């Protein structure tokens, strides 16, 4: 059994978002999520990546600019764009099965089909036998996979992943990435994957965007033409290394800038003077 997904296409056009004076998060951000591609957004911490996800999901509205899904403007949260959160947002009071079935139930399509699909997905990520366990009884890696399938069962048009593997140790993270690649290569849905790790970005993505520090804008676009299906061995190829060294330079610049910004925040250096023409 395989699940049919209808991949969507999203476009972000000239988006601005601010949370008050001195807390400008996004400045003139524009990019496209191409149909059936895995787009990776990479930037230092605190560059407004999470704000961007919240905008795409429809939890908050942009101050300016527009966000389109298949040409239609986004108005609010809906299950055609699903978020996998940074910290696990599995409901701690429901077991794995109830968590997975939450979407189908609230949407009123909790038939045999949905149950079959849940069973298929749970098996796919190797969680069979854990259906009756509560989130606290699962390991960190299992929780992330459970969250992945809770989103997937709703057949979203776009998956929005907000640093889903953050906080896992390097080795578990690598295995989680393998699960993700397997699922992605099978479904070929549209994915926006946000991360702060370069390796992850290059390993998983088809297109990578690099963001600047706050207020965040897109700094560079990079095509990643590594072959698919990918395995962890891709990380020791020369092509990968070349891409990585380009990316490192971009990111290193931003990291230094972010560090400078921290010092400004601590009041050790004067804020950069506003240019007035």
């Amino acid at each position, binding site marked *: 059994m395989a699940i049919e997904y209808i991949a969507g296409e999203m476009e972000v056009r000239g988006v*601005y978002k*601010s949370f*008050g*004076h001195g807390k*400008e998060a996004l*400045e*003139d951000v524009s990019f496209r999520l191409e149909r059936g591609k895995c787009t990776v957004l990479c930037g230092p911490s605190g560059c407004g990546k999470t704000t961007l996800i919240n905008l795409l999901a429809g939890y908050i509205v942009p*101050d*300016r600019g527009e966000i389109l899904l298949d040409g239609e403007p986004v108005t609010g949260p809906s299950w055609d764009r699903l978020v996998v959160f940074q910290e696990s947002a599995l409901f701690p009071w429901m077991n794995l099965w109830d968590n997975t079935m939450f979407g189908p139930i609230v949407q009123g399509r909790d038939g045999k089909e949905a149950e079959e699909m849940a069973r298929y997905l749970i098996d796919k990520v190797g969680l069979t036998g854990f259906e009756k366990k509560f989130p606290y009884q699962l390991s960190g890696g299992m929780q992330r996979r459970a969250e992945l399938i809770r989103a997937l069962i709703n057949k979203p048009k776009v998956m929005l992943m907000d640093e889903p593997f953050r906080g896992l140790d390097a080795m578990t993270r690598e295995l989680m990435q393998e699960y993700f690649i397997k699922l992605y290569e099978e479904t070929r849905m549209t994915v926006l994957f946000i991360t702060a790790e370069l390796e992850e970005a290059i390993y998983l993505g088809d297109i990578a965007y690099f963001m600047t520090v706050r*207020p965040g804008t897109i700094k560079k676009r990079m095509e990643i033409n590594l072959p698919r299906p990918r395995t962890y061995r891709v990380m020791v190829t020369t092509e990968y290394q070349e891409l990585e060294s380009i990316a490192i330079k971009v990111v290193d610049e931003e990291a230094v800038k972010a560090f400078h910004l921290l010092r400004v925040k601590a009041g050790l250096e004067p804020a950069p003077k*506003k*240019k*007035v*023409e």
Partner: protein
Amino acid sequence: MENRAAEIIFEEVEVKKRKAARKEGAKTLIIKTLSIFAGAICWYILSHTIMTKVPDPIVTITGTIETIQTPWFYKSIVYSIFRVFTGFCIGTLIGLPMGLLMGWLRVFRDFTFPVFETLRPIPPVAWVPLSILIFVKLELSIIFLPFLGSFYAIALNGKLGVEQIDPSLFRAAKCLGANRWQVFRYVVLPGALTAVFMGLAIGMGMAWITVVAAEMISGEYGIGYMTWQSYNLIRYHDCLLAMFTIGLLGYGSSSIIRMLGNKFLAWKKVY
């Protein structure tokens, strides 16, 4: 430049948002003030319909103005404050070291904590008769109650505070070559301070509750005694006055502790 354009956009949005927020804030403030009045009106209606014995707000206010001119009122306050303060201080002096040691040393905890846990379910008020037997003198037996009430809260929070300290801090201190006394001085004491102040605030609240109960049951003078005595003298509005005075005093003393806490805990942003 582009940057400049972005700034103008942000500025515009900012102004709009601030206006909306101000409007919302004003509305909330009005509702909050009105709600106090609404409460007073409810009180008035209740006192004239179902609970006819309860004095209405107007009677209470006129009675209050009369009472606060008498020395009796102030004498009561001073007595209660003295009792709470003494009991609380003794409670801190005994409870704090005990709590810290209970959290820190296993042997000490094993010997004291079971006793502590056995006695704790007995509410301090239930100690009143026994406290009279033990201390014979009335004043001492009343002070025993705020002591007991604050003691439990302070000791328990001290213990929890030490237990919550990240164990790697203990390890780090040992690594740096600290001996037992230095571990206590540099890790246990400052590490538990947040919880200790929490315990002090709760203990202060308990001290007021217990002192009022003790004064009602066996006291002479004191604000709790005043509450009960006013009832016996059918000066019901004084009951209400005493009630609110106790509330104010309790709130005030907790605020003092909170202020002290903020002063000591400069390394912590929120308390």
